[in-house]
Structures are given as structure tokens and as C-alpha cells.
């Protein structure tokens, strides 16, 4: 079966981002960019499905700027067979990305689409669910285990306070959580092979998708700095503060 994996180019998780002085966003100039960690897990899961003989072809897709070809090449080096870049210089909302992915899903007709549960830049946690809505497929979000059998997939999901298993009819959408697998490293032989794998570039226009948004980011600020602490006199006062002031209990 064909598996489609969507990946996003984001600031590397080791980079500590800084908010720009004019509050229009975070400073991404000369900052290391990488594949979103949850997307790496998605690629890894697809590759494992292929190694088990379940997946026959892995198509990796990214909606992003032309530089996102780097992340697609990385996915190819990790084991994807071919790549599609839907090139868009502007930052798109999850809904717009989901619509573009839907257009590619219509073209490619995969049995399984695997996405990261959220991107570590926008922290939205929306795209997979939205793609599921647009395609009408079942969704297994925050997956910690994925088992394909016949024409269905059993997805164990990380939910508040435990795990839940659902069975989805294929085709289906899966979004990955951290514990699903541990992504491999791209080996040098596979890096060299990735160069020769096909990478197709499309545009939202060519896919006939409007990327208009109903959301606008007005400003971006640094979080409030840690205010000077206080000394409490007793355990009772501490508990009271933690409950009512800090609200962490």
C-alpha cells in the first residue's frame, strides 16, 4: 500500500528562539532549520511499515518554502521513495496546509497518511485532524502504536491519563506522538541515494487550492519574565499559594 507522509520545516529543536524587537514574530535569521521532530517520527513509522512489507511506496510531502527541499531530501535519505514540495513562501495556517495535502491525497490516493501531531514552532496540533475532516477519513491522533492488518489500522493513542486504541478503516490518517518510535539517523549510503530520488515541486495555484486565512497574528511577545519570588512562612501558606496564586495544584 502507498503511504503518504507530511513533514514540516521548522526551527531546530535545539535553538532557543528569541522574539523580534518589533514584536512581529520570532527571529529566524541565520537560525538552524530542521525537520519537525514529530514529522521525523512519522517518516520513521512509514519506513518501518515498508521494512515490514506493509507499505510498498512512501511519498513524502512538504508544504513550505523552496528551502524545505532540504527536509524532503532528509526524508528521502531516511527511506522515503519520492518527494513532493508544495511551494509556498508565505506561512500558511493549518487549514490551508490541510487543503493542500487533501489535493495531493486526491492525486496520490494513499491508504495511510502519517503526520506529526504538531509542529514545534506554531504548536497548533491541527493539520492531521483537518486533513481527516477534508478527506472524510478516520483519524488516529497522538499515536504510540500503529498496526495495519488487512483493510484497517489499529492505532493506540496517548490520551490524558492513559492510552486508547481505536480501529480505523483504511484509508486513514495517523498523527504521531513522541513514543511511537525512535527515528534512525540518515546513513551516508542513503544520503547519497537520496540525491537520485525524484522530488516534484507543485504550487497551491497548480493544485487549485486557496490558502486564504481567517486568522491573523497581531503580535508576538516574549513570555513574562520570572517575577522575584517570595518567602512563605508555612506549609499551609505554600499550599494556598500553589493552589490559588500559581494554580499548579
Amino acid at each position: 500500500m502507498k503511504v503518504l507522509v507530511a513533514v514540516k520545516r521548522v526551527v531546530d529543536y535545539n535553538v532557543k528562539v528569541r522574539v523580534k524587537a518589533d514584536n512581529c514574530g520570532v527571529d529566524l535569521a541565520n537560525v538552524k532549520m530542521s525537520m519537525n521532530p514529530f514529522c521525523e517520527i512519522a517518516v520513521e513509522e512509514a519506513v518501518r511499515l515498508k521494512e515490514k512489507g506493509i507499505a510498498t511506496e512512501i511519498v513524502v510531502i512538504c508544504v513550505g518554502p523552496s528551502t524545505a527541499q532540504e527536509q524532503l531530501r532528509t526524508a528521502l535519505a531516511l527511506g522515503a521513495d519520492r518527494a513532493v514540495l508544495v511551494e509556498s513562501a508565505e506561512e500558511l495556517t493549518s487549514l490551508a496546509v490541510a487543503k493542500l495535502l487533501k489535493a495531493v491525497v486526491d492525486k496520490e490516493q494513499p491508504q495511510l497518511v502519517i503526520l506529526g501531531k504538531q509542529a514545534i514552532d506554531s504548536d497548533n496540533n491541527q493539520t492531521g485532524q483537518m486533513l481527516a475532516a477534508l478527506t472524510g477519513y478516520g483519524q488516529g491522533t497522538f499515536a504510540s502504536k500503529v498496526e495495519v492488518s488487512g483493510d484497517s489500522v489499529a492505532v493506540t493513542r496517548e490520551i490524558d491519563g492513559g492510552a486508547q486504541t481505536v480501529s480505523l478503516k483504511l484509508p486513514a490518517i495517523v498523527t504521531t506522538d513522541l513514543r511511537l518510535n525512535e527515528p534512525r539517523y540518515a546513513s551516508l549510503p542513503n544520503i547519497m541515494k537520496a540525491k537520485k530520488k525524484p522530488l516534484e515541486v507543485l504550487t497551491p495555484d497548480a493544485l487549485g487550492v486557496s490558502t486564504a486565512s481567517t486568522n491573523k497574528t497581531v503580535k508576538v511577545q516574549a513570555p513574562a519574565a520570572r517575577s522575584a519570588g517570595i518567602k512563605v512562612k508555612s506549609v499551609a501558606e505554600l499550599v494556598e499559594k500553589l493552589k490559588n496564586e500559581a494554580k499548579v495544584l
Partner: protein
Amino acid sequence: MTILVIAEHDNKVLAPATLNTVAAAAKIGGDIHVLVAGQGAGAVAEAAAKVAGVSKVLLADNAAYAHQLPENVAPLVAELGAGYSHILAAATSNGKNILPRVAAQLDVDQISEIVSVESADTFKRPIYAGNAIATVQSTAAVKVITVRATGFDPVAAEGGSAAVEAVAAVHNAGTSSFVGEELAKSDRPELTAAKIVVSGGRGMQNGDNFKHLYALADKLGAAVGASRAAVDAGFVPNDMQVGQTGKIVAPQLYIAVGISGAIQHLAGMKDSKVIVAINKDEEAPIFQVADYGLVADLFEAVPELSGSL
């Protein structure tokens, strides 16, 4: 303006996160309706009807909604919600699972995990793992929003007297089915993933005394960590070490017990949301970074703290 709040529940009990979500709705202003979708969830609907500020409760009671499968619940919410100005759900695993599906069906962008309401169409939400706060404005006809519970004080669970109205609509997509559920093990959470971390330092005096911290941690559902000094002294194994050369943690609440606060330890926990320090040395550097400091003998304070939770 009328706001639809999706109730978080397990068919028996209305989850507290719903009260925070209603609080966010109240900040936006307008009538607040609550949708309870479930199976045999009448008690939940009754509880929702009593929540302060709620004017109507919609109860969609059907087997299709028993396990909150988004394939079934989302079309229901989209159908009912189309006439509302806002649809809100708690940013729980259910809320996060269902609501984006609703937004896409309504063809609007969603705003995830808001921590404050600026106006009826403008909200604040953390991005980049909380390293920045974005202010987002929505022009959508129906604003679809998930709410981070810690950003809003819950409204009172009692005091309202809304009418409960049954919803007949049944959506059963047939694309998914519930297989099973496993409740969390009673084991303590993993250190770096825990929402609360209790750490002990050299002040614990020996490994046996860490039992006080385990008792506290079990009350809080917390993980237990240690400073390098405690690890080097052999009190606990080194996989518990928090610090620059150990694990880096950033929980909601970090309780440092008997830890002086060497800079290397601070590097491993300084991004915690709230830091509590318990130490009998009031000059200990840990107090410089602690939000709440308690100068006390930990062997008295920690058991007392466990007892009062």
C-alpha cells in the same frame, strides 16, 4: 453572541477542565451553551446545567458518541455549532482531537490552546513551546478555539440552572471504532515528561530519606529527581539527576527539597513554570530563583506538605 462549549467528560462525570473552558467563554461574553455528546451521559448534562453562567445544555446521547470518536462527534459539533459565534473546547486530548476536525468542516482556521481572551475575536496563545506568546485575531464567522485550562480560573460548578435539551442528530461515520482503553499505570511519570517534579539534594542526608519525596510525589502525580550532590553521595541512581549534566526539566511545578542550588542544577530546571524551594539555609542560592521559598526543616515540612494535599 452565543458560545458553544464542548463538555469534557467520561459519560459519568463532567471533567473540571470544562469549568475553565466556560470561564474562557464568559470572558468572551454572550450566552453560553454546553454540548454534552456521549452515551448515557444524562448525569453529565445535569451537572453541566448547574455550572454558573451556562444558559442551555444540549445533550446528544447516542452510542455513536460513547467514546468521543472524532469521526462521529465532529460532524455533530459542526452541525450544531454553525449557528454560534464561538465553539470552545478544553485543550485536552479529546478537545485537541475533535475540534480541528470541526474547524475544517466549517472551513475556518482554529486557534489552539489560548491562555487569555483579549476581546471577542482576539486571543493569546503560546508558541515555540511557550518561548513566545502570540496574539491572534480571527475573522471567522464561527471562531473555533481550544482553551488551555491553566490560563483560566474555573467558574463555579454550582449556581446555574440551565435547561437540558436533547439533540436527536446522530452522526455515525462508520470509519472508526473504539477498541479499548488502558488507564495510566500508577508508576511515577518520566522525569522529563512530568508536569510536576520533586527533587532532593544533599540535604536529604541519605537515600532512605527520599521516601518522604516519593510519598509527596505520589500525592502530586510527580516524578522524583535529584541534584548531582545527592547522586554523587550515592543517595539515588544517576538517572534521577537534574542539572546541566543530567536531565533538563521544565515542568509546571518544580519542588526543590534540600537543594542548595548550584548553578549546574539551576541550568537543568530554571525553565520550570513555578519553582518551590524548601531549605533550612535561608542563604541558599536556590531561593534566588524560587517563586516560593520555604525556610524550614525538610523532615518536618515535606511530610506536612504531603499530609495537606
